[in-house]
């Protein structure tokens, strides 16, 4: 599956989850929502063949996500709301899942292949809802992998597919070992994701 096809799924799931909380996602918030899922997808056993996000001026950015959402909008699975042209000529807009897109999501939900991915995105949604959707940007800016690599300038590829380069997973793995007790002990994905958000929100209101 090509990276853009992979992102088609992610966009459909993200916008469906956001819609559950009555949220439309703008271009940047959509990028960030998927980024938060990408960072711990390895722990969930979800191996992506994405090219991944790069550091950019408004946080991590993956061009494949933008292309995917544009394709979905063109095909009618996603609608574009609240479009606006800013003074600098850039266009802002929010994306919302359409009824057809919702049907596509329902089909995916009934397919075992997407089960884990959908569970992960749903849990990300639960945790963002608890932290506040307006904090989505702040959560990503506090995410260790991005934090450590943003100093490399724009266009630096964030490799979250390996424990060696995914700083969040390294920190969470250390915390997990400390909490659970031994190196081999298992922490289920839900608890691991809760711990992930505890790490992200730790400095949120400080």
């Amino acid at each position, binding site marked *: 599956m090509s990276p853009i096809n992979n992102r088609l799924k992610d966009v459909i799931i993200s916008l469906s989850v956001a819609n559950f909380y009555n949220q439309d996602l703008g271009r940047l918030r959509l990028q960030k929502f998927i980024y938060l899922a990408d960072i711990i997808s390895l722990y969930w056993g979800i191996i992506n063949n994405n090219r991944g996000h790069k550091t950019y001026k408004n946080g991590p950015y993956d061009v494949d996500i933008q292309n995917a959402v544009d394709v979905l909008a063109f095909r009618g699975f996603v609608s574009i709301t609240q479009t606006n042209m800013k003074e600098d000529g850039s266009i802002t807009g929010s994306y919302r899942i359409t009824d057809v897109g919702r049907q596509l999501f329902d089909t995916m939900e009934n397919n075992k292949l997407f089960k884990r991915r959908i569970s992960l995105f749903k849990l990300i949604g639960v945790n963002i809802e608890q932290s506040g959707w307006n904090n989505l940007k702040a959560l990503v800016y*506090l995410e260790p992998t991005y934090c450590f690599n943003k100093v490399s300038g724009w266009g630096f590829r964030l490799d979250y597919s390996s424990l060696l380069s995914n700083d969040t997973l390294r920190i969470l793995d250390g915390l997990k070992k400390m909490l659970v007790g031994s190196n081999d002990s298992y922490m289920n994905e839900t608890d691991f994701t*809760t711990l992930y958000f505890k790490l992200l929100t730790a400095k949120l209101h400080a």
Partner: protein
Amino acid sequence: MLDQIETVCKDPAVSIFNAFKSSKLRLATITKFLKDICVFLKTHQSDLAAMDYLIKLNFVSTETKTKLDSHQIINALENDSKIIEINQNLSIVSLDKIDSFSNSGISSFCLKNKCVCVFVHNGSDITIYVKGVPAKELNINYPLSLPRVNKRTARQSRDYKLAIMDFYNQRVKHNITEHWANKSKRILRGGKTEDVFQDELANWLDENISDGLVMSKVKKISKDETDIEIIAIGGNSYLIEIKWLGKNESNTSHDQPKIKDSIIQVKNYLKTDLKVLDSALVIYDGRDLEKFKQLKCIDSETNEWKQLKECLKQKVPIRSNCYVFFLISQSASVRKN
């Protein structure tokens, strides 16, 4: 990044997860349970006012019969059940009693039962105990505020005599009570001199006695009016009678016989009020230091206070204590002892 990691480690849900790692408790479940409790307390804050109680967390029960609400908590407190055990459905599992809400009391209860407890005090401050260890203190309205600081002079009703000593050391000794009309001539303020001390002491006790109700100028069935009465949670009551010695600006003066009369007065109060567990006759001495020194005592702090056993052959009754506090008028640099 290290401070983020430290914050995660100090998170109460993480502490609970760590303490109960063998019981397969879910971190997400604990987080939600704690959050639900905070939301409940915030929602019912006005109903529950400043009640103190302990919530014991039960992670196993799935009972849904008795939903936790303000009425249930008030009913439990009325029946002296200050421990309310609840489950994740915010349903009451059981009620229990506890002797004391001191840190050590809660801690040992929690340790003995190997459980998680949330101590709610002043209505909005909570302390989370995990297997006896205080894991987190926070205010539900201002979660980022620093933990409440224990007041240096806070006492329990039973130690009301220490609170009287504190009052002398913190206020009277330094004339914060403004009892002198003419300090150099040792003349006390006129009018109702007794009220100067009584009002200030009543305020002090009200602010510093943590587990009781302080009442001033208490009238009961008879016409007698006692100066201050403390009624502790549980029903024990303590009586305080205040007198003064020396001269005031209205030219009234009292000397040693006043102590004797006051002892008799307290004796009579105790005869009438059989429910008073203990009492204190508190006398502020504005006479010369030499006269104060002449008082025979059983315990004392040099030139500051004395505890008398008797005065002019009048013995202090069993359920009473008589303290005479010397009113210092000279500054520390002038005093010779």
